[in-house]
């Protein structure tokens, strides 16, 4: 019985609404909107869905009862006082609600059961059919799209209460964006005044207003004699139409309005703007959020639409449903569970935050993809490098999108692919991406054409594009660990051979692995969007979701999330689930503060903040604890960073009147800072030696807090501590000197420091002078000296290299290249019986002699070491190859022989290791 009641009531309500020609789906929305908080809602919508289904089945029956139906509504429609409207509506709602509650008991029943029950009940069936009939009519209406007021029944006949209810349930434009808006001449509406009443078919109120204003017209808020046009849509207000008649104002419908643009600008074949709607949707939200008072609100409450001030729960959901409409049609239940992030995922490039401009990354990527086939067609596989490579990426087969999380990199890639008509395979960190698998999955796909295109004939995009596809490698920097070993290398290989574009996405572009990848990719760096950009987008979402939020609160959320749009949306959705109105009260503020994204600050930013004097900076630390936190971003790097950069700070509060005094003051502050840093260094040594890590806060005070306090001021981009490079260089020189000392040890008594300080400069002159002065005649004496001290040819180079100080002339450059060549030849001719095995110290990895004990830095050192060596080696090779190619060869052979020596020694030990 309850079910029966429910159905009766719903069909009744639908019946009442017949005049407004509302489709069942919308009706269901409305119904659900009435009880948006109760669980009944879900049930209801389910029911309605079911009804809809059955409706289509009983299509035939509809026509039969159509006539009787049309009579029915006339009986109902009696005019009542408007004052009673609200009351009635409320009573209606209450009644319904109670019915719904009863029916909620039935929730568990499956649609089939309900159906069975229903079919037993004959009287209900008729009503159902009536209702179905309505639906058909609705369809008729919607297909017509043009709604002239004449077609409608005189509105005066309607019951006012129903009228109000209808208003409350009124939808947005039925077919938003369905009609192209012609582009007219600017100011073709100059001086004209428009007023729209009712719901237009394709334009919503603000779009309408925008169009009018765009062409120089104005939209009035109430009826007036001066009005030029009244644009009428569905549910037009009768009073307005009447008044229009009284005042002799032209009434037109939407189509006529659009035509008007053409006629007034004298265009016969109008061009249409397609993107207008897209842009507008975002804008609407913003403009509507601004509280605007409509003057005629009281007089014509039916006209009133979505002002935030008046938002009853009903309206909110209604608004929401309007926007969701296209999706609602498909799967409503799924929709409800969708994350906002998915729900509001941009579908067009112009809608991606911060990517709207001509030169945005998204558009660059778009152009790159568009032209990809052209650039990399089989003919010119090796595209020439040109000056604007980084501009267009023409020579790259892959693109690398990099940037912080949550700013739309993946979305951009997907949207761009869609836009160009590429189908894409997406691989992310959830897929294992080892070398093997990549080769297997990608290797094939990159060389094949998509099979999909053969089956799908109705591709949206033109036939030209139909077989295009690409690979999106998401989260490339996540390719790590044992699972994905060699993944990046393999990816690079694949990129080299690829026949399809590959889009790689990563967060950290500076990562070691990514750096090698970046060389093969069209580098597109994404930056955090600006506050205003995010704000605008979020405002629109808030509006769509019916959240009331103040601008400054939203700003706080955005900065708190560090411009991470995804997180902003998540946060908003969580907060709004409690409370739809968020004002800057204390509680919500504290909520936001708590939700401040703990951004992993990079040490450079931290260093900047250490010296920060700008209190307005939202991230600026406020108290000692926060300032000490800066130190803990990387406690081994921060002291060095501060030391490297404290000199380049321009302090703000220097005492003194003259520049001299200020300079002196500055020096004083510098002294205090560096002394404190020294103290910190000592603390650090103690804490590392004794593993007494509880001393870290003490070091924080000395190494970063005090210098920061002393030298508060402006600082540019902090430089990377040169200490690392210098220290590894020193370790290297130390190793070389040690080796040198070993070679000479039999003949000298000095230790390596003695060699470095005393012998080097003497040996340098002794070894080069004869060659410079006497040329080839000097060779024997030099060789003699070398043999005496058991120096190898490499030692010779080392001595020259280490013995030359900055500002000194390289003695090698003074030696004639012929002399050098014959010297090397002479050296190689002789056999050298060295009392030691030759080890190429420069190539020893892992730095036997890294004198500091901390492991993290060791790793870094080794890396830098290699760089240094590589750089040095390069310089040497270059110098040699310039001066003489012959010697280069010979030296190589020497090195080779030396290597083979090493190998023969190294092998047995290696095999021993294996055995053990």
């Amino acid at each position, binding site marked *: 019985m309850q079910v029966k009641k429910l159905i009766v009531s719903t069909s009744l309500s639908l019946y009442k609404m017949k005049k407004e020609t509302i489709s069942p789906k919308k009706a269901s929305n409305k119904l659900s909107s009435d009880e948006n908080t109760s669980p009944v809602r879900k049930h209801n919508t389910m029911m309605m869905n079911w009804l809809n289904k059955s409706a289509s089945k009983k299509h035939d029956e509809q026509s039969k009862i159509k006539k009787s139906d049309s009579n029915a509504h006339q009986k109902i429609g009696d005019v009542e006082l408007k004052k009673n409207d609200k009351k009635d509506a409320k009573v209606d709602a209450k009644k319904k609600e109670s019915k719904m509650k009863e029916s909620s008991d039935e929730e568990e029943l499956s649609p089939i059961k309900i159906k069975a029950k229903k079919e037993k009940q004959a009287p209900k069936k008729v009503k159902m059919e009536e209702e179905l009939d309505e639906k058909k009519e609705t369809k008729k209406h919607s297909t017509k799209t043009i709604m002239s007021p004449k077609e409608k029944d005189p509105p005066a006949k309607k019951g006012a209460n129903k009228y109000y209810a209808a208003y409350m349930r009124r939808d947005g434009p039925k077919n938003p964006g369905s009609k192209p808006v012609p582009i007219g001449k600017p100011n073709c509406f100059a001086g004209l005044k428009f007023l729209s009443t009712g719901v237009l078919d394709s334009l919503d109120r603000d779009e309408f207003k925008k169009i009018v204003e765009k062409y120089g017209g104005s939209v009035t808020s109430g009826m007036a004699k001066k009005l030029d046009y009244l644009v009428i849509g569905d549910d037009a207000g009768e009073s307005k139409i009447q008044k229009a008649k009284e005042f002799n104002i032209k009434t037109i419908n939407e189509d006529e309005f659009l035509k008007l643009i053409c006629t007034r600008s004298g265009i016969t074949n109008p061009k249409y703007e397609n993107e207008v709607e897209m842009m507008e949707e975002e804008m609407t939200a913003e403009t509507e959020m601004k509280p605007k008072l409509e003057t005629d609100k009281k007089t014509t409450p039916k006209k009133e639409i979505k002002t935030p001030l008046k938002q009853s729960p009903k309206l909110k959901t209604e608004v929401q449903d309007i926007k969701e409409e296209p999706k609602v049609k498909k799967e409503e239940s799924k929709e409800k569970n969708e994350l906002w992030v998915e729900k509001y995922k941009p579908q067009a490039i112009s809608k991606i935050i911060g990517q709207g401009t001509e030169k945005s990354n998204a558009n660059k990527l778009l152009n790159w993809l568009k032209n990809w086939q052209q650039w990399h067609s089989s003919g010119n596989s090796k595209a020439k490098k040109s000056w604007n490579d980084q501009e267009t990426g023409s020579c790259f087969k892959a693109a690398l999108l990099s940037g912080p999380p949550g700013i739309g990199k993946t979305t951009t890639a997907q949207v761009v692919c869609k836009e160009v008509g590429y189908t894409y395979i997406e691989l992310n960190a959830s897929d294992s991406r080892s070398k093997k698998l990549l080769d297997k999955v990608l290797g094939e796909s990159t060389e094949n054409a998509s099979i999909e295109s053969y089956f799908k004939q109705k591709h949206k995009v033109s036939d030209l594009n139909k077989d295009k596809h690409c690979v999106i490698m998401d989260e490339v920097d996540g390719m790590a660990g044992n699972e994905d070993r060699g993944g990046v290398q393999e990816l690079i290989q694949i990129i080299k051979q690829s026949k399809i574009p590959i889009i790689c996405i990563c967060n950290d572009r500076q990562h070691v692995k990514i750096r090698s990848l970046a060389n093969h990719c069209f580098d597109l760096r994404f930056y955090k969007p600006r506050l205003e950009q995010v704000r605008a987008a979020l405002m629109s979402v808030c509006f769509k979701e019916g959240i009331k939020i103040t601008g400054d609160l939203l700003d706080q959320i955005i900065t708190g999330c560090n411009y991470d749009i995804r997180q902003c949306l998540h946060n908003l959705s969580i907060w709004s689930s409690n409370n739809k109105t968020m004002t800057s009260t204390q509680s919500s503020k504290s909520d936001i503060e708590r939700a401040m994204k703990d951004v992993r600050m990079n040490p450079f930013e931290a260093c900047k903040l250490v010296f920060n004097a700008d209190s307005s900076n939202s991230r600026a630390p406020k108290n000692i604890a926060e300032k000490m936190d800066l130190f803990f971003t990387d406690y081994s790097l921060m002291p*060095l960073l501060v*030391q490297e950069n404290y*000199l*380049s700070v321009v302090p703000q509060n220097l005492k003194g009147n003259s520049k*001299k005094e200020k*300079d*002196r003051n500055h*020096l004083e502050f*510098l*002294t205090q800072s*560096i*002394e404190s*840093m*020294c103290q910190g*260094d*000592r603390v*650090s*040594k103690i804490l*590392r030696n004794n593993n007494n890590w509880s001393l870290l806060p003490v070091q924080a005070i000395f190494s970063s807090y005090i210098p920061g306090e002393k030298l508060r001021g402006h600082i540019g981009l902090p430089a990377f501590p040169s200490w690392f490079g*210098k220290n590894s260089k*020193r370790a290297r*020189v*130390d190793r070389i000197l*040690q080796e040198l000392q*070993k070679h000479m*040890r*039999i003949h*000298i*008594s*000095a*230790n*390596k420091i*003695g060699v*470095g*300080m*005393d012998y080097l*400069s*003497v040996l340098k*002159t*002794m070894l080069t*002078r004869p060659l410079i002065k006497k040329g080839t005649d000097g060779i024997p004496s030099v060789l*003699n*000296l070398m043999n*005496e*001290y058991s120096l190898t040819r490499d030692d010779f180079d080392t001595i020259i290299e*280490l*013995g030359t*100080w*900055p500002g000194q002339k390289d003695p090698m450059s003074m030696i004639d290249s012929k002399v050098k060549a014959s010297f090397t030849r002479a050296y190689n001719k002789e056999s050298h019986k060295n*009392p*030691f095995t030759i*080890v190429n110290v420069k190539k020893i990895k*892992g730095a*036997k*002699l*890294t*004198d*500091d*004990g901390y492991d993290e830095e060791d790793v870094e050192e080794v890396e830098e070491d290699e760089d240094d060596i590589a750089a040095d080696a390069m310089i040497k090779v270059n110098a040699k190859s310039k001066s003489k190619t012959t010697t280069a060869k010979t030296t190589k052979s020497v090195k080779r022989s030396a290597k083979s020596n090493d190998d023969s020694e190294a092998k047995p*030990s290696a095999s021993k290791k294996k055995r053990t």
Partner: protein
Amino acid sequence: MSLWCDKHRPKELGLLDYHKEQAEQLKKLVHSEDFPHLLVYGPNGAGKKTRIMCALRELYGPGVEKLRIERQQFETPSKKTIEMTTLASNYHIEVNASDAGIYDRIVIQEMIKTIAQTNQLDAQTQKSFKVVVLTEVDKLTKDAQHALRRTMEKYMNTCRLILCCNSTTRVIPAVRSRCLSLRVPAPTNDQIVLIIKQVCKSEGISISQDLLNKIAAKSNRNLRRAMLLCETAYISHYPFTNDQEINEPDWELFLRETARQIVQQQSVERIMQTRDRLYELLCHCIPADLIFKGLLKELLLICDGQLKPQIVEIAADMEHKMNLGDKQIFYLEAFVVKFMSVYKKYLESSLAGSFGQALK
């Protein structure tokens, strides 16, 4: 044709040119039955290793001069292989354990112990013990030095240690007390002059007294350096002239220029430039204490008398702190900045004072 400093190195205790009494004592020590562990210390270029070699020769005969270089490998508990190069004769072995850096303890434990544990095969014809020369003991970590303690006592019968270092301050007292300390002071300028004169004579070179004095002065009481200076001078210009420039080592020139720059201008930019120069020195493995010393020496030459004590104090303070600390550049820079601050203040006040006087 090796360099003079190596060519004319005395090989017997009797031929040593200075500290002759000490040489005599050493000789007596060798010939007495008991030969203790030795701790030889003194500045660079004073002749520590020469003296040690002479003593060894006294002990074992000329066989110790047949040296060979050997490489040995060790594995740390963390599976890292360390390669050590040793210098050895049939009777002794010379190790610089500090080459192994932080793993020196393993070298001491593994290598020294194995050497010490083995007995001499033929104790009749040979000495009953062999000698391990450990160089740069002051650079050993504390752990390594502690590892040395037990070895020194336990294997006294088979092995004697000769420790060689620059300063005993960084040698733990426990080790110091187990050794007979032997200080080898640097030669005086007169002794240096005398030695160079002899060397020149045997090389057949005539050299004037002035030049000798000059060289001795520049050598900083380092005999090795004096010899090398003399030889470079000889190569660059011979016959010698009286006003001949003595080419100092490049790093000293560099250091001097650095000091000059510091005095020239006291500004932030100059500090940055100085930092680069200091890094350059450190990268060439010039010990930081020598950098301190060199800077201070140059700065004192330029400073007024009033300022001197203050600056010496700053330098001493910073050097001391540096030894306690970790990253040397911090302290060098601190010294530079502090000096600039003090010096600038002094300059301005004295300038103002002189202006005031001029006005009066």
